């Protein structure tokens, strides 16, 4: 039996942003935001995308949404490569792929009522009559744990957690098959964060949602995701099922990232591996392995070749030439 076809299959995705050149400079420079990234997300799966600032995780989310155009590579959604689809044809896919933002109201009209905000997507895609849309808004508000009266109120009347519920309702309004959630709980207080995570978990089980969950909080990702992709400076370092990644990381960056995360246990023993220095500039990333300038296991060879992402166990991939560590 062959493996099921993934809902989303990203192959060799690359995104470079041109940097404004200095006058008289002959060299054109680029920010290497995402370099040759390949991964897939199965139907009903929740995949975590973790990494620090500048790792490219948000750019990947935005590229899948086609909010920004990829420089190279394929984004195959349900059998169709949408990476270079013209705007008109892309509209149909916009409905299938929806995004949940860190603060859903930072970019929305504060004068629109919540009901209008949730119905907006349905209107754009011509779903239902106005009456049907109103009924759907009520149903969605109930689904995310808010009362139907919320539709008549304005965004500023809601707390952060409630706003995120509204953002989720808005994303679900067009019945998407795939959700890109970019740091959906990181702006929330811990007790509210737990409520929103539970809501996402419920929705995932009820609606069979497929989610790409972009986050920097490792314990939130461990809790919520089935599989985790670890990124650094635009490249994938490691991909593994969550129980493997957290128990036995195989890439030096994952090891350092996990050891750096603070643990709510004052008695925790365990050495912290501090990555020295700062993340190198993405305009001029290190040759070979991008981590080598901060990696405690780096060898001279690491500067020579870009380590390929290779499978070291079923479903467990890493981009590191050394097999004698970890």
């Amino acid at each position, binding site marked *: 039996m062959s493996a099921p076809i993934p809902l989303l299959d990203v192959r060799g995705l690359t995104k470079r942003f041109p940097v404004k050149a200095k006058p008289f400079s002959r060299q054109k420079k680029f920010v290497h935001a995402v370099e040759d990234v390949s991964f897939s997300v199965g139907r009903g799966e929740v995949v975590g995308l973790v990494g620090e600032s500048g790792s490219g995780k948000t750019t990947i989310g935005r590229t899948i949404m086609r909010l920004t155009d990829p420089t190279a590579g394929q984004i195959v959604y349900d059998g169709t490569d949408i990476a270079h689809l013209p705007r008109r044809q892309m509209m149909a896919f916009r409905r299938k792929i929806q995004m949940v933002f860190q603060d859903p109201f930072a970019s929305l009209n504060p004068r629109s009522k919540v009901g209008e905000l949730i119905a907006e997507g349905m209107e754009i895609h011509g779903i239902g009559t106005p009456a049907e849309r109103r009924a759907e808004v009520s149903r969605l508000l109930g689904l995310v744990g808010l009362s139907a009266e919320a539709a008549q109120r304005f965004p500023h009347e809601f707390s952060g957690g409630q706003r995120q519920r509204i953002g989720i309702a808005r994303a679900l309004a067009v019945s998407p098959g795939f959700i890109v959630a970019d740091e959906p709980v990181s702006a929330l207080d811990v*007790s509210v964060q*737990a409520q929103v995570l*539970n809501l996402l978990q419920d929705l995932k089980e009820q609606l069979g949602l497929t989610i790409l969950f972009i986050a920097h909080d490792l*314990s939130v990702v461990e809790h*919520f995701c089935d599989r985790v992709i670890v990124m650094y400076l635009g490249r994938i370092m490691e991909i593994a099922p969550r129980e493997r990644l957290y128990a036995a990381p195989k890439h030096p960056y994952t090891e350092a990232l996990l050891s750096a*995360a*603070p643990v*709510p246990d004052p008695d925790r023993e365990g050495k912290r591996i*501090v990555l020295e220095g700062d993340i190198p500039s993405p305009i001029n990333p290190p040759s070979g392995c991008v981590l080598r300038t901060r990696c405690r296991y780096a060898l001279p060879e690491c500067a020579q070749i870009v380590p390929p992402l290779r499978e070291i166990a079923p479903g467990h991939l890493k981009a590191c030439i050394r097999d004698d560590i970890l």
Partner: protein
Amino acid sequence: MTTTSATPLLEVEGLKTSFKTSRGIVKSVDDVSFVIPAGTTLGVVGESGSGKSVTSLSIMRLVARGGGSIDDGVIRLNKPGQPAIDIRNLDEKSMRRVRGNDIAMIFQEPMTSLDPVWSIGDQIIEAVRLHQKVSRAEAREKAIEMLRLVGIPAPESRVDDFPHQLSGGMRQRVMIAIALSCRPALLIADEPTTALDVTIQAQILNLIRRLQKEIGMSVLFITHNLGVVAEIADRVAVMYAGQVVEEGPVRAIFSAPRHPYTVGLLKSIPTPGSSSNPMASRKLDTIGGAPPDPVALPHGCRFAPRCPLAIDECQKAPPPLFPVGENHGARCIRWPEVSK
């Protein structure tokens, strides 16, 4: 009266700070008391609006600009071998000397706290010369030394950089360098690592710990991150709706909390290692409801409307801070029944 080594460096007793708003008076900090012994770290945890930042701004006497006033209480700074300083009643000129010299503060957002038109060296030199009588050349040497201490590579050349030339982690380290350049007795750190990545956060926490050992300062560390508190604090104060609802040694707070809010907070964070535990639930425990409206606080226990253990009596009168263990207090009448 001079201070002996047994007196805590900072004593806060019955602090009350309020803000006048269009909707009424907000009692942001309402009867808060704690002490910080010399060389130790008190972690203050709480969610948005719990009063943790206003507590620290009150200690710095920086609430007036935001329309707030300190209405009651004592804030006393006891430097070894010197007379105690009554911060609340200090004149503004002396208070300026206390800020920076005795108490320094670092904030969450290093970009907005640094002046974009001055080099980082100039900003450290300014801080040094404001508080110490040294020449400009000497102050520059001190600035370079501080940058080296906080782990900025090549500090001799970096000293002339401007804030925009530095990464977020480096800017936060520069802020710490400015804060520490006067060797304060107390460092107030308000969410200093919240905006930073975990590997940079680990560097900054290591740095604060190392400097604390080297210069023996006390630290008031404000955060909403329970993991960070577990790593850095000796004692922890948990704040809710303007009050300290539980205070105690870090181990006791994490292993034997005695306030239902503390228990709720600890249970609502995902446990690291949950993926290796097949019994772990995919659902997190949550605290129902939302914090009370600050202009209409409940008469009795402020947590009672959300508390799973609440009984009628909880609504009748505000609970005092009960002694529940060694140097451990909780503001809950049902504390003997509370467990994790």
